[in-house]
C-alpha cells in the first residue's frame, strides 16, 4: 500500500512538471476560437439546422469553432462549459438544455475574461454575468399564435396542446402563451401534455388516442414542426380533415423548409418561425465585440409567421433549411 501511494505521488509530480512544460507550448495563432455548448446533437430538424448554421457561419468568418454536445445531460453541459473556459476559447456561446444553474459557469467565464453569449434559450443569469444574448422569445412566438387564433373568430375553440420537452424554455414559453391566451379568451384546452422530446411518434400516439376516445377538438397547437407532422399523420389515419380547408386548424412552430411546404400545401394553417440561423448573428456580434463596439445586450431574434393564406412559393424557396 505504501509503495502504491509513493508511486502515485511520484507520478503526480512527473505530470505536473509535464503540465508546466505543456503550457509553454500553448500556441496562439491569432485565430478567434468560439466555444459552443450545444444541446443534443439532433433532437429535431430545427437543432440540426441550428448546428449547421453556426458551423458554417463561423468557418466563413474565419473563426475556429469548438462545438460540444451535452448529450441531454445538464451536468455534462456544465462540465463541458467549464472545460472550454479552461481551454481559453475567446468567446463562449451557450445553448442551455436547462435555463437554470449556470451561475458558476458564468462567473468562471467572467473571471477568465471570456465573454459569454447566450443563444437560442435564455439562461437565468443576472445582467452582469453575460455579455450578450441572441435568443428566441418563445413566449412572444406563442403570443403571435394566440393573436392569430383570436383573429380567426371561431365559435368554439377546443385546443390540443402538444408540448415539447418538459422544462425547456421553448416549451415553457410557448405553453405559457397558449395557456394564458386560452384563459383570457375563454378557449377550451382539451389536452395539454408534454411529449418527451420533440418527436413525431408520441404526438401521433397522443392524437390517435384522443380521436379514439371521441374528444372533440378543432385546433392543434404543436410546439414544433415535427410534432405537428405527427398529429397530422394521426388525423390522416382517422380521416379528420385539417389545414386550410379542414376542420382542424394546425399551428406549428420553427418553420423548417419542409414545414413551410406543408403550409403552402395548406396542411398547416400557421407556422411561426423560430429562426435557427444563429450563426450569422453571432458572427456579427463577435466581430463588433472584437472591434470594441458597444453591442445591444439583449437581442431577441426577429421572427416571422407564415399563414397558409398568405404564403407564397417564393417564400418557401428562399428558405435555406
Amino acid at each position, binding site marked *: 500500500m505504501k509503495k*502504491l501511494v509513493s508511486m*502515485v505521488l511520484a*507520478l*503526480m509530480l*512527473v*505530470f*505536473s512538471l*509535464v*503540465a*508546466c*512544460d*505543456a*503550457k509553454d*507550448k*500553448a*500556441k*496562439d495563432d491569432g485565430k478567434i476560437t468560439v466555444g459552443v455548448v*450545444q444541446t*443534443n*446533437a*439532433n433532437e429535431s430538424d430545427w437543432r440540426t439546422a441550428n448546428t449547421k448554421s453556426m*458551423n458554417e457561419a463561423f468557418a466563413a468568418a474565419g473563426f475556429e469553432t*469548438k*462545438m*460540444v*454536445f451535452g*448529450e*441531454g*445531460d*445538464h*451536468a*455534462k453541459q*456544465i*462540465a*463541458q462549459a*467549464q*472545460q*472550454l*473556459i*479552461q*481551454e*481559453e476559447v475567446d468567446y463562449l456561446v451557450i445553448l442551455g*438544455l*436547462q*435555463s*437554470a*444553474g449556470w*451561475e*458558476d459557469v458564468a*462567473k468562471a467565464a467572467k*473571471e*477568465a*475574461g471570456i465573454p459569454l453569449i447566450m443563444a437560442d434559450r435564455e439562461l*437565468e443569469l443576472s445582467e452582469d454575468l453575460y455579455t450578450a444574448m441572441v435568443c428566441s422569445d418563445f413566449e412572444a412566438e406563442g403570443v403571435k399564435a394566440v393573436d392569430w387564433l383570436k383573429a380567426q373568430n371561431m365559435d368554439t375553440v377546443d385546443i390540443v396542446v402538444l408540448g415539447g*420537452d*418538459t*422544462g*425547456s424554455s421553448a416549451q*415553457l414559453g410557448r405553453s405559457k402563451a397558449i395557456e394564458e391566451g386560452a384563459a383570457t379568451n375563454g378557449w377550451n384546452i382539451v389536452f395539454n401534455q*408534454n411529449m418527451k422530446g420533440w418527436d413525431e411518434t408520441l404526438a401521433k400516439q397522443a392524437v390517435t388516442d384522443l380521436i379514439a376516445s371521441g374528444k372533440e377538438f378543432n385546433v392543434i397547437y404543436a410546439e414544433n414542426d415535427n410534432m405537428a407532422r405527427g398529429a397530422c399523420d394521426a388525423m390522416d389515419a382517422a380521416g379528420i380533415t385539417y389545414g386550410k380547408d379542414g376542420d382542424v386548424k394546425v399551428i406549428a412552430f420553427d418553420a423548417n423548409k419542409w414545414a413551410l411546404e406543408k403550409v403552402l400545401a395548406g396542411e398547416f394553417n400557421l407556422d411561426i418561425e423560430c429562426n435557427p440561423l444563429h450563426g450569422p448573428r453571432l458572427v456579427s456580434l463577435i466581430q463588433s465585440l472584437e472591434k470594441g463596439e458597444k453591442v445591444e445586450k439583449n437581442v431577441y431574434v426577429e421572427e416571422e409567421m407564415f399563414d397558409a393564406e398568405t404564403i407564397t412559393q417564393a417564400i418557401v424557396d428562399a428558405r435555406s433549411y
Partner: protein
Amino acid sequence: MSSLNEAPQIGRFDGIKNKLMRREKLTDTVFLLTITISLFITIYALAVIFLGDKGFGKIQMFFNLFNENAALIVIACGLSIVMVTGSIDISVGGSTALICTACIVCLNNYGFNFLTSLILALAIGLAFGLFQGILIAYLEIQPFIVTLAGMFLGRGLVALIEVNQIQVANAGFEKLSAARIEIPFLGDYNKKGIFLQSKLEYGVVVALIIVVLIFLLLRKTSLGRSFYAVGGNPQSALMLGINVKRTRFLAHALCGLLAGIGGFLYLFHTRSGSVQQATGLEMDAISASIIGGTLLTGGVGNIFGTLFGVLTGGTVLLIVTAIGSQDPWWPQITRAAMLCFFIILQSVICSRKRRKSE
C-alpha cells in the same frame, strides 16, 4: 511452501505455483485498485502531454474534475457499497432528481434554509434506502426490479411536485453554494495575462471526507467487512455468524443515505431542478464503480477505486470535449468503448485468477 503440496502429482509445478502465490499477495481488491489508479494517471498524463494547450495543462482543470464530479463521487460510493454486497441500486438518479426539486420547492416557498433542506435531502435518500432495503433484504425481491421501482418513483414524483425547471431563489443557500475555497499559491495565468486563483468547491471537501469515512467504514469496522463477506459468499457469511439479511439491509440504507448526500451536493452544485435532472446518473455511478474495480458479482471493491473511477470517467468526457468533433456521436461511443475495455479486462483478469487458484 513445499509442505503445502495438495497432491504429489502437481509437485512438479511447485516452482510456478510458488511464483503465483508470491504474486498473489495482492488481494483482488488491491489488484483492481492498482489497475484503476495507474490507468487514471496514464490517461491524465497523456491528456496533459497531448492536450496541454486545450486546458489540461492547467491546475484548475484538475480541480474542476473534482468540482464537477463531487456529487457523483458520493453517489458512486453508495453504489460501490451495494455492489460489494452483490446487489445493485438504479434508483439513485431518480432520488437525486427528487431531492433537487423537493429541496428547491421547500427553499423557495416554505422558508427552508440550508440546514433544513439538507435534512430533507438526507431524509428522502434514507427513505429510499430503507424502503428498498426492506424489500430486497427481508422480502428477498430482486434488487434490480425493486430499485427500478425506486427510479420510477423518484422521477415521477418530481413531475408531481413541479413540472417546470426551477432554480434556487434563497439568498442564504445561494451564498453558501457560490462560496469557493481559494487555494493559495496555486493558479494559472491565462493568455490574457489574468492570474486565476485555483478554486475548489466546498462540495468537493464533503465528498472527499465521505470517501475517507466510507473507506474507514469498509476497512476498519466489522460492518464494513461483513459487506465484503456477504458479497463474497453469502452462504459462508451466514456460517461465519454474520446476519446476512441485516447486512444487506444496511448496505441499501447506507446507499440511500449517500444518495441523499450526493443529491444535495448535486443541488449545491447546480442550484436547479427539473424532471430531467441527473438523467442516467445511476449508470454513470455504476460504470464509475466498475471502472474503479468493484465487481458486480460482489465481494470485491475499493472506495478509492471508485473515486478514481469517477475521475477517469470525468477525464474521458473532458478529453472527448477537448479533442472536439464535428460529429456528435463520438463522445458517447468513446466512453462506451472505454467501459467495454474495462469490463472485458476485469472479466479476463478474474477468470484467470480463478483458474490459477483452482
